[in-house]
């Protein structure tokens, strides 16, 4: 204690010396104005008291606040902190809560709240939250934003030249936007601005391109788009009518070369009855669609978008084929042919890689299409279950 007093005394002594020297070196100046003006100030005690006062005040406040924090401490559930640590912290609102913190509190305290609501954080985080909160994680279907318009600068027409703020929300105020088609994407990149993950970039032809690796399906772009042209749909559904035009066919055609003219060809061609024309617009039912891509090849205006990069063609393994000719019956492009009871072959030129034959083949002899892995896995599972049942029946008997 004595040392500290000595230290302070020494320190103030140094300050006094500085003040004494400065009085000789610096010109004397008054401080303050009006009646409070002083002819000169004494720097030594001024600095000393300033330091002591500020130090003392901060110490007093520090102690008081520390005491208050101890006395009035609130117990926070440590699980909330843990859940917060696993969330994506994008504050996107995909979970339906105001922010990440609110969701963390709700998921810990409310037994009904699912641990899988944070889509940006993904499945791993959902599993972690499930462990923390003692709930069961649900299977997350990856959702992606899809732009339901292909009418870029080259393919669609404008009604007038818009020269306002470059923002779709501003452009729509000016008579519903400059695009002739009132259902189409305005292309001023509002979705790009709001995307918290940088998954949207505007192409040079003024259409948003969505990066599936970055998109988390948080629905921010969907809610901000004034034309409601962005839809968030399950990632597995890769064939969609990328058009929202409810105008009559000829009107749509006038405004845009890639609009849906509700010709109904997709309805006729689809083996699963997925597309349905309603209000001059074909809509593919994502529940029924099996992503075969047949409608994509037949659509006269190319309004149906295929988000699958490429479709590999089907091939029949001759040693497995039993010559049942089911593939020949189901093939929509008549690519499969062969004599009955003999191995069939698929015409690689005609095949569009729709995968229907792969799904229908009773012996899983057709491979090469996009759904082959899936179909084979399902068949193997079915076989295993049947074997299990048979074994069970045996033991029972």
């Amino acid at each position, binding site marked *: 204690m004595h040392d500290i007093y000595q230290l302070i005394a020494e320190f103030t002594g140094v300050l006094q010396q500085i003040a004494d020297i400065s009085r000789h070196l610096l010109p004397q100046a008054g401080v303050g104005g009006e009646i*409070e003006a002083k002819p000169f100030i004494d720097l030594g*005690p001024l600095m000393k008291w300033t330091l002591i*006062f*500020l130090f003392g*005040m901060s110490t007093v406040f520090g102690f*008081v*606040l520390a005491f*208050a924090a101890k006395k*009035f*401490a609130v117990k926070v559930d440590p699980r909330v902190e843990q859940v917060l640590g696993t969330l994506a912290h994008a504050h996107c609102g995909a979970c339906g809560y105001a922010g990440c913190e609110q969701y963390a509190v709700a998921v810990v305290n409310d037994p009904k709240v699912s641990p899988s609501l944070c889509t940006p954080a993904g499945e791993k985080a959902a599993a972690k939250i499930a462990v923390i909160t003692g709930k069961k994680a649900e299977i997350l279907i990856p959702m992606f934003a899809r732009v339901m318009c292909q009418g870029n600068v080259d393919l669609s027409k404008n009604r007038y030249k818009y020269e306002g703020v470059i923002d779709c929300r501003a452009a729509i105020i000016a008579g519903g936007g400059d695009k002739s088609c009132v259902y189409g994407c305005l292309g001023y990149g509002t979705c790009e601005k709001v995307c918290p993950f940088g998954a949207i970039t505007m192409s040079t032809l003024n259409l948003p391109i969505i990066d599936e690796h970055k998109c988390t399906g948080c629905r921010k772009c969907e809610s901000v788009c004034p034309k409601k042209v962005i839809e968030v749909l399950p990632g597995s559904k890769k064939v969609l009518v990328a058009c929202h035009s409810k105008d009559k066919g000829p009107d749509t055609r006038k405004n845009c070369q890639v609009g849906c003219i509700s010709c109904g060809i997709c309805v006729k061609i689809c083996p699963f009855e997925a597309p349905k024309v309603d209000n001059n617009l074909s809509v593919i039912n994502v529940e029924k669609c099996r992503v075969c891509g047949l409608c994509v090849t037949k659509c006269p205006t190319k309004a149906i978008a295929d988000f699958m990069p490429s479709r590999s063609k089907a091939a029949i393994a001759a040693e497995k084929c039993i010559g049942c000719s089911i593939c020949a019956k189901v093939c929509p492009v008549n690519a499969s042919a062969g004599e009955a009871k003999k191995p069939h072959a698929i015409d690689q030129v005609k095949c569009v890689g729709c995968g229907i034959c792969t799904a229908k083949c009773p012996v899983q002899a057709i491979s090469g299409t996009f759904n082959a892995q899936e179909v084979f896995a399902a068949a193997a599972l079915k076989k295993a279950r049947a074997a299990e049942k048979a074994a069970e029946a045996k033991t029972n008997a």
Partner: protein
Amino acid sequence: MDFGKLFELVVSSSLVNNYVFTMFLGLCIFFGVTKKMETAIGMSITFTTVMMISAALSWIVYKFIMVPLNIEFLLIIVFIGIVAGLVQGSDTVMRKVTPDLYNKLGIYLALISTNCIILAVPLQSVGNKYNFIETIAFAFGSGLGFSLAMIIMASIREKLELADVPVPFRGLPMAFVITGLIALAFTGFSGLITL
């Protein structure tokens, strides 16, 4: 004790020199918390309480420590420190005592610590050389004026939710327009009391 002077001080600080409508101070809280009547009232009570305590404490520190030590120039930094400490303290206490109110006021409680009205009240009371009782009356009046402004604004904004406002004016722009109009009305009080 001159009660007439105190009454005049309260009226002048709440109506004639209303901080929000005639001096345009503390607008961030004013616009941030007036969306709902409930939070506006909660905020007004917290605000007035913190203001009175901080003004009293600042006056004591100024009069009995800073003036004798000749360090009046530290005024602003010391008052900011006092206000921030008080807000932090009341934040901690409120979290424990009334968690509901704490959840509703949320981040705005932290806004009080850097609020200009809270700082302006002790600065003005020192500048006008009020004594201790006058300082408290002045702080009370200012708090009352701020609460009045908050309640007027909250009730208007609650009604405004149902009004057919042109799209570009929805939300904050309309609130600013309304504030301007109320401020015009408040100029009617000017010259009522000259201290």
